[in-house]
């Protein structure tokens, strides 16, 4: 961002007349708005896509009316409806925390958008600790969920919040462990550097660089699904058991925040998977045919589609099965894979 602003300032006489701080401030505001807008667009598009995919899988039509063809305006209309709804706060709820919770959940997702590169160098904040930053701030969302669950003063919400806490904290471990393998091979935490390291054909993608990383990619995918509460791991908001869990008592705008964050999280986990395993913005051929962002968004789109496909295929796990999957299957496997990557690097140095 700094380079971008510096370049812009040098090119524009209007900006040169302003103090450099003002330019930076304007750039910050601009990029925050870009991140928010990007997140909102992603979420709205994914909500629509989810409805269409679920409809197709169930041999239905899905939304068709609003906005002409394919009902593309269905989710903007829904969002508008949510924004205009009455903002209810349960009488016995803890008003302060109840109001803060959606903001925290939203912020956690929004912060991750700042660090995701959609092209070579196309990133709002080119952080040296990129992937670590994403892992760190995405663990914030759980606080918002627990807060909302507790502050609602409803048993369903509380159960949802507690389930979310145990689930997300547990599944963070396999997520991190499976990503560390890539970090080891790439030798950097910077997402842009990691993306650059995968240029030059599909065989350079980290997913296909080593059998251990292939398995780690699958482990990551499963664990990431659980971390953002997607089916088959959507226990914190299980409609049939918990009346949609932690957001039972939420309505209107605050619910929209939770909802937005949830669907934007789909983009985040898919984007991380793409950057870490699927060659980021690089094409699968040795030369780049289309611009990077198109490749990147195409891959993310495909992964989101797979996630939705999974959601409408699999039933929900039981709580004990969930914990069993994490602690007894995914964590040991990801640890073994990590060791395997290390051994591979030791046996074949420089590869």
């Amino acid at each position: 961002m700094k380079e971008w602003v510096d370049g812009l300032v040098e090119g524009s006489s209007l900006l040169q007349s302003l103090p450099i701080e003002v330019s930076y401030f304007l750039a910050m505001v601009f990029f925050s708005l870009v991140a928010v807008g990007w997140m909102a667009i992603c979420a709205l598009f994914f909500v629509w896509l989810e409805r269409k995919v679920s409809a197709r899988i169930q041999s239905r039509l899905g939304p068709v009316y609003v906005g002409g063809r394919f009902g593309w305006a269905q989710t903007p209309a829904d969002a508008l409806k949510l924004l205009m709804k009455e903002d209810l706060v349960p009488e016995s709820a803890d008003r302060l925390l109840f109001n803060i919770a959606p903001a925290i959940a939203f912020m956690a997702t929004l912060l991750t958008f700042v660090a995701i590169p959609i092209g070579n160098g196309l990133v709002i904040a080119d952080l040296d600790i990129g992937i670590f930053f994403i892992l760190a701030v995405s663990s914030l969302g759980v606080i918002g969920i627990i807060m909302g669950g507790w502050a609602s003063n409803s048993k369903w919400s509380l159960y949802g919040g507690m389930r979310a806490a145990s689930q997300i904290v547990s599944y963070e471990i396999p997520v991190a462990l499976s990503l560390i393998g890539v970090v080891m091979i790439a030798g950097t935490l910077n997402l842009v550097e990691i993306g650059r390291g995968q240029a030059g054909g599909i065989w350079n993608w980290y997913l296909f660089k080593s059998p251990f990383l292939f398995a780690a990619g699958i482990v990551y995918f499963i664990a990431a699904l659980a971390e953002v509460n997607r089916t088959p791991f959507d226990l914190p908001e299980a409609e049939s058991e918990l009346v949609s869990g932690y957001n039972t008592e939420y309505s209107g705008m605050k619910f929209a925040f939770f909802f937005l964050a949830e669907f934007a999280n789909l983009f985040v986990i898919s984007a991380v998977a793409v950057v870490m395993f699927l060659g980021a913005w690089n094409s699968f051929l040795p030369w780049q045919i289309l611009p990077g962002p198109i490749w990147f968004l195409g891959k993310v789109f495909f992964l989101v589609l797979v996630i939705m496909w999974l959601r409408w295929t699999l039933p929900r796990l039981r709580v004990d099965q969930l914990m069993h999957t994490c602690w007894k299957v995914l964590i040991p496997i990801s640890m073994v894979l990590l060791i395997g990557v290390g051994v591979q690097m030791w046996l074949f140095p420089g590869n």
Partner: protein
Amino acid sequence: MSDEIRLGVFLGFGMITLVSGAVVALARTIIYSVFALLFTFFGVAGLYVLLHADFLAATQVMIYVGGILVLLLFGVMLTHKIATVQLRSASMQRGPAALICGGLLALLLYVIFKTPWPVKELGPATPTVQRIGRYLMTDYLLAFEVISVLLFAVLVGAALMARRETNR
């Protein structure tokens, strides 16, 4: 960033840290303490960023917020009657405690402002991750290994202690 902005950001993070820290120490409702701790951790992470310790800031957020805070929340929720919103946390001996703490604070401030700190010339921000990794694998390898053994022991011990004793 210029020094004024930096100072403003520093003051902002400092205020967040201290105000929420005060809420942690003084709030009557225990759950407010826990959630105020979230903002304290955040403020401290912000201070780390200002000190060019980005890796530490991310570690702070990841482990404190994502791990310890959730653990504390579990602790609160599993050890109280959580069906009601009001979770009181009694505090006692406030007077003497305030006296001691005030005295200690005065002493610390005296030390802070009287000591001639050997402040070096501040360099530009440099990536820290690689150097931290090098230190961990060279100079502090023993400490690193010991702490990993400690973590393992904690993992086993905590699981053993917290489990339901069904086999007795």
